């Protein structure tokens, strides 16, 4: 990472959704601690992968960065400018630089608008008049994302899921953004289509130098796409590292368990060790004290219950590899999951 100001700097980001209850006077009786104190940076042109189980706060994080949600606490800076609590007017100049790609391509396109209208909408809102007119720009964008520019006047219902997601990508690109938050952009698509869309995003990232926050639960796709990966558990980042580091030398027990759960691709491979986590993810309304993973961790001790482990560079980590664990894994404690050494998976 460069030493200059990062493109996006998130520190202590917290989002608690209040739970209202009581009668006759409704009051806040609790909070869903969806995101609880995230720290990370995204450099220009870099792709940060955000992985974790369902309900761990990945999507909430994405919506906080794009300011669809108001953070409860913490700070979000974009190029050094604080946008944590900026209103619509204050965000206006930044809106065009941070864009989002949504999960469900069937819900993210207005069914009553033509493709042309959907893609030119962002330009219209931000009063951008590209050279040669908006229609020309829309045709260009359609070509970039691999769609027929002649489909300008079609409606979303005439396209397949993969094509719709391409339209969503074109819309996100319409404003020449510097950062795209992709919220599980391929998880609603067929596996055969996923690769196409991921390759498209990769092409976009490389050719246009756009930074990505790539939210996914598929480890293989994140590995393919992101230079740096953050693993989330119950609203906290438990481990963040460069791609190779994380996949080959996972230090947090949860990361290790996640990696060991990736299905084996080769049939006659040696059976590798599979870490089975018992129990469910605890409720984010009442998360466990100390380390949030301790209820399912096989190494948990008294210390884990009383003291929350900080996200630091633990002994034996490369620079930039941060782990939040009192008892980080080493090669010795448990044989590393075979996946991380599988040459085919690394390809």
């Amino acid at each position, binding site marked *: 990472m460069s030493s200059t100001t990062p493109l996006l700097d998130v520190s202590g980001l917290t989002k608690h959704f209040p739970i209202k209850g009581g009668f006759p006077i409704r009051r806040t009786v609790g909070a869903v601690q969806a995101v609880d104190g995230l720290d990370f940076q995204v450099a220009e042109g870099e792709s940060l992968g955000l992985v974790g189980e369902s309900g761990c706060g990945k999507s909430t994080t994405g919506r906080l960065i794009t300011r669809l949600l108001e953070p409860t606490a913490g700070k979000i800076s974009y190029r050094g400018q604080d946008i944590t609590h900026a209103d619509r007017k204050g965000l206006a100049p930044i809106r065009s630089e941070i*864009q989002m790609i949504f999960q469900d391509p069937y819900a993210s396109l207005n*069914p*009553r608008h033509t493709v042309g209208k959907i893609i030119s909408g962002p330009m219209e*809102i931000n009063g951008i008049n590209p050279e040669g007119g908006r229609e020309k720009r829309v045709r260009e964008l359609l070509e970039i994302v691999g769609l027929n520019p002649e*489909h300008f006047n079609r409606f979303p*219902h005439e396209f397949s899921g993969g094509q719709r997601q391409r339209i969503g990508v074109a819309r996100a690109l319409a404003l020449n953004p510097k950062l795209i938050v992709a919220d599980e952009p391929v998880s609603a698509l067929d596996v055969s289509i996923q690769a196409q869309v991921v390759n498209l995003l990769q092409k976009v990232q490389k050719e246009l130098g756009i930074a990505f926050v790539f939210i996914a639960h598929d480890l293989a796709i994140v590995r393919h796409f992101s230079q740096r990966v953050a693993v989330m558990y119950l609203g906290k980042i438990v481990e963040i590292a460069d791609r190779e580091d994380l996949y080959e030398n996972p230090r947090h027990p949860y990361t290790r368990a996640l990696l060991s759960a990736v299905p084996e691709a080769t049939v006659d491979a040696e059976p590798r060790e599979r870490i089975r986590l018992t129990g469910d993810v605890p409720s984010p309304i009442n998360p466990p004290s100390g380390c949030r993973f301790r209820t399912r961790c096989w190494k948990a001790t008294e210390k884990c219950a009383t003291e929350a482990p900080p996200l630091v560079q633990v002994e034996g980590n490369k620079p930039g590899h941060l782990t939040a664990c009192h008892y980080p894994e080493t090669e010795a404690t448990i044989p590393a999951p075979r996946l991380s050494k599988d040459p085919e998976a690394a390809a």
Partner: protein
Amino acid sequence: MTPPTPSAAAPLEVTDETVEKSTTSDGSKGSESRSPGQLAWRRFKRDRTGVISAIIVILFFVAGLAAPLIAKIYGKDPYTTYGLSDPTLLGDNSYPVKPNGGIDSQFWFGVEPGLGRDVFTFLLYAIRNSLLISTAITILVMLVGVIIGVTAGYIGGKTDWLFGRVIDILLAFPQQLFFVAFTPVVLNLFVPANEDTPTTIVVISLITLLVVFGWASIARLLRGQVLALREREFIEAAKVTGASPARIIFKELLPNLWTPILIQGTLLLPTMVTTEAGLAFLNVGISDPTPDWGVMLGRAAQVYQDDITYLLFPGIAMVVFVLAFNLLGDSVRDALDPKTKR
């Protein structure tokens, strides 16, 4: 009866049709695409009941709007008491002399018993007045209902709660009873009890009352629709690009709400026609010298034992109109929302 997600419904049904089309025409013609609206129109045209109903409804509206013209060509008006000036029309018992309510080449639908007015022009003007009042009420109800429903749904929170309770109260009222009891009260606000009430005041207060008590169900329906749409990702996508609330409501939400609005509108109008006629029948709406469906039916109810023909014309006309409009409403709903298969 309301489509839960009209927006999602339309595409799903349609996809195979368009895919079929594009494979046969090699899919290279970008200009050949059709909007959801055009697809609905195609489906509607295929629905024979709907088309016939639409023609009947349009005929009624044309007859109502062109009533003065038709009356002029026909050579009579609904106010002149032909029976009193021409003693050959009405007998000593004040009923028409000729059979079938006095139908002849002069008076196509016969003569009114008692005063001897021309039934044909009276009915034309009754249709005209009833439709004008009902249309005005429907448009205002839809307008108020859409504005309040969309606002409450989009803003949410306290506003939504407040409107929600107002709607609850309005829907809890026994409406017919309330109209009967309150119309004289409202009229008394404008005109002292001992004076004659001008028809315009009656019409205005009628419209006001029906609108005040009519918007609630539409607003509740649209609020629900907006709540469902508000969480859809395309609204978030618009927000991410910095769209203003006004743009989101008018450009993103409203195009997706036309389906329920149109359906509710077409179902509301015939209801308003019957409500308005019902009130006139109960002597709280439009009253006698002014031609009106309800007035006619009220008068016919007094004489039907001796002159059934006088009841038949307004009665049948109203049944045909309300039936056709309701069938039209059903067809519009089927065309716009192909998921509701009967």
